[in-house]
C-alpha cells in the first residue's frame, strides 16, 4: 500500500512537471512571434464598416447584478446601430425582469430586447437569443459580469483570420475583497495565460461564459448550445474542436466577473464546472490520443478526463504517506512498547533529523513550484497585473493550498457521480 502510494505521488510529480515544462517550451517557441506582434491591435475600421454584433445576456434570478451588466454592455464603444442586445429572462422568480425593464427604459431607441421564457437552463436561454440574433457575431454575456468599453474594438480584429470561430477576452475577477476571491483572481490570470498557450497549439478546452465572441454562422451550423448540458460552454468548445475550428485568446481587452465570495458558493460553482468538464470530456473521449485532433487529442483530452481523479489520488496518497501512515506506525509502536503515547509522540517529534528526509522528492517539488512561479509571473505580466496587487499571501496560497481546496470539490463531484446526482444550472 505504502509503495503504491509513493509511486503514485512520484508519478504525479512527473506528470505535473512534464506539463509545466511542455507549456513553457510552447511559450519559448512562440515568444518571439508574440513579441513581434507587439502592442494592442485595435480595429481601424470606420464605425460604418463595423460588423453587426449580438450580445445575449441569459439571466436567472440576477436582480442584484443585471443592472450593472446591461449598463456595461450598452456602454460598449461601438456603433449603436451595429450592436444588438438580447436579455433572456430564464424564468426568474425574483425581480430580474422588472429591474431589466427599468434599465431598458434608459436606452430607448437602441437595439435592446427582453425575452421572458419558462426556466429551461442557460443553454436554452442562449439558443433563444441565437434564433433571433441578427448579428454577424454572437457574444454570450453572463449576467454577473462586466465588460470594458473597448472590448469589441479589440476582439473583432482577431476574426480577420477566417479560420477563427471564437475569441476569448482576458477574464479577471471583479474587485476581490477576501482571500478566496483574491486567490481566484490569481487563478483566473493563470488560466487565461494557459489558454493563450493552448491557443498556440489550437488546444483551448473551454470558452467561458462572460463575453466570448462567436461567429453566428458557425454557431448555427453546429446547432447552437446544448440545452441539457450543465456546462454548455465546455460542450460547445469540444464541439468546435471536433469540427477543427480555431479559438483565440485575446489579451487586449478585459471582462470582469464576480467570483464566489464564500466557500459554499465556490463549492457549488466548481462542483458544476468540474462535473460538467468531466462528463463532457468523457462524452468526447474518442478525441483522446487521436492524431486526427493533433495536440488537442494528445495533451488536452487526457488531462480533462483524468485531472480530477489524478488530483484525488495524489491528495489521498500524500495524506497517507505523510500523515496517516507515519501516525499509524507511531501509535502501533507506542501501543507495543506499552508506554505513554503522548511522551512517545513528543519524543518522535524531537527525533527530527535532516538527513532522514526524502530529498529527491523535495528537489522535484521545488523545481515544480519554481517553474510554476515562472508561469504565474508570466501570466501576471501578460494580464498587466502586478503580482503584489492583492498582497503577497495570495501567490503562496494559490501555489500550495488552492489545489487541495479544488481537490476537495472533486471529492464531492465523484461522490455525486457515483450517486447519480445531477446538477441544475
Amino acid at each position, binding site marked *: 500500500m505504502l509503495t503504491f502510494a509513493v509511486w503514485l505521488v512520484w508519478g504525479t510529480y512527473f506528470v505535473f*512537471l512534464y506539463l509545466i515544462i511542455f507549456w513553457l*517550451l510552447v511559450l519559448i517557441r512562440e515568444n518571439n512571434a508574440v513579441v513581434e506582434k507587439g502592442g494592442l491591435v485595435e480595429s481601424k475600421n470606420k464605425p460604418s464598416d463595423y460588423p453587426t454584433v449580438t450580445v445575449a445576456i441569459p439571466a436567472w434570478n440576477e436582480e442584484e447584478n443585471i443592472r450593472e451588466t446591461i449598463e456595461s454592455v450598452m456602454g460598449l464603444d461601438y456603433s449603436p446601430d451595429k450592436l444588438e442586445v438580447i436579455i433572456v429572462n430564464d424564468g426568474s422568480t425574483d425581480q430580474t425582469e422588472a429591474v431589466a425593464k427599468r434599465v431598458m427604459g434608459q436606452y430607448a431607441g437602441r437595439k435592446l430586447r427582453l425575452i421572458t421564457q419558462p426556466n429551461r437552463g442557460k443553454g436554452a436561454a442562449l439558443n433563444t437569443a441565437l434564433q433571433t440574433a441578427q448579428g454577424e457575431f454572437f457574444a454570450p454575456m453572463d449576467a454577473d459580469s462586466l465588460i470594458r468599453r473597448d472590448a469589441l474594438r479589440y476582439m473583432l480584429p482577431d476574426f480577420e483570420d477566417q479560420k477563427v470561430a471564437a475569441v476569448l477576452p482576458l477574464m479577471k475577477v471583479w474587485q476581490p475583497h477576501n482571500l478566496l476571491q483574491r486567490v481566484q483572481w490569481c487563478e483566473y490570470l493563470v488560466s487565461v495565460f494557459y489558454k493563450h498557450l493552448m491557443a498556440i497549439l489550437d488546444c483551448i478546452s473551454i470558452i467561458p461564459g462572460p463575453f466570448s465572441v462567436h461567429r453566428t454562422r458557425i454557431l448555427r451550423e453546429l446547432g447552437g448550445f446544448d440545452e441539457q448540458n450543465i456546462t454548455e460552454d465546455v460542450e460547445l468548445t469540444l464541439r468546435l474542436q471536433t469540427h477543427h475550428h480555431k479559438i483565440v485568446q485575446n489579451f487586449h481587452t478585459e471582462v470582469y466577473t464576480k467570483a464566489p465570495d464564500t466557500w459554499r458558493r465556490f463549492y457549488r460553482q466548481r462542483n458544476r464546472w468540474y462535473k460538467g468538464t468531466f462528463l463532457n470530456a468523457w462524452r468526447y473521449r474518442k478525441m483522446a490520443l487521436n492524431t486526427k485532433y493533433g495536440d488537442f487529442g494528445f495533451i488536452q483530452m487526457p488531462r480533462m478526463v483524468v485531472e480530477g481523479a489524478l488530483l484525488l489520488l495524489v491528495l489521498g496518497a500524500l495524506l497517507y504517506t505523510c500523515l496517516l501512515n507515519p501516525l499509524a506506525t507511531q501509535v502501533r509502536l507506542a501501543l507495543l512498547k506499552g508506554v505513554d503515547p503522548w511522551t512517545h509522540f513528543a519524543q518522535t517529534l524531537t527525533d527530527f533529523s535532516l538527513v532522514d528526509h526524502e530529498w529527491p522528492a523535495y528537489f522535484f517539488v521545488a523545481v515544480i513550484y519554481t517553474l510554476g512561479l515562472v508561469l504565474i509571473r508570466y501570466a501576471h505580466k501578460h494580464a498587466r497585473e502586478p503580482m503584489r496587487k492583492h498582497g503577497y499571501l495570495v501567490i503562496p496560497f494559490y501555489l500550495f493550498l488552492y489545489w487541495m481546496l479544488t481537490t476537495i470539490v472533486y471529492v464531492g463531484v465523484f461522490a455525486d457521480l457515483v450517486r447519480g446526482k445531477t446538477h441544475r444550472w
Partner: protein
Amino acid sequence: MVIRRVSTRIYFIAGLLTLSILASGLLVGFFIADLRASFLEQWHRRQLGEFERGERRQLELANFRSAKNCAVTQRNLLGTMEDVDTARGKLERYLTSTLAGYNSRLLRLNREYASTALRYWLLSSAIWKMCEFADAPGLYLYSGRGCDGCRVREEALTFVRDKYGQRSFVFAVDTDLLREEEIETIRKSHGVTTGSPLVIAGSRDSGLFRNIEESLRRVNQHDGPALR
C-alpha cells in the same frame, strides 16, 4: 478549418527535460544519502569506542575485584566520574545557550548524561560492595506524570541530595530515559514494579515519597549520617 498537428518535438524535449530533472533530483538524493551514511558511520565508530572503553573498565574492575584492589578500582571510578562531568558540562552549556529548546539535540545530550551517570552509579555500587565503603550511592527514579505529591517529593529529594551529595542520581523515567536499556536492566534486577523507587546501593524502596516521615526514616535506614 485548423490544420491539426502533433508537436512531437515539444513532447520529446519536455520528456527529456523532465527525466533529466528527475535524474538530478535522484543524484541529489544519492549525495545526501552518502553524507548520511558517512555521518552514521562516524557516529557508530564513536559509540563503538565508548562501548569498548566501558567494556575495558568493566574488565579491569572484574580483574581488580578478584584481586580486591580497591585503589585501582577507585581510580577507574574517578575516570567514569570525569565522563559524567563532561556529559553534564555539555548539557549545561547547551541549556544556557540560545539554541536550547526541547529538541533532538537536548534529548541526545540528556541521554548521554543519563547514560554516563547510570554507568557511574552501577560502577560505584559494585565498588561499594567490594571495598565496603561507608558511603553508598543512591539512584532515584521518578515519574513526572500525575505528580500529586510533588511537594513531598521535592522535600525528600532535597533530603536525599543533602545526605548523598555527589553520589545521588535522580532521573525521570518517563521522558528522557524512555529508551535507555540500563533503566530497564536496573528495574528488573532490583525488582522495581511500582513508581518512584529509590535504589540505594543494593537495596531499594518503592513508593517512597508518599509520606515524608516514613520516607525520611527509610532513607535514614541506609548508611550515612541522619540529617533530620
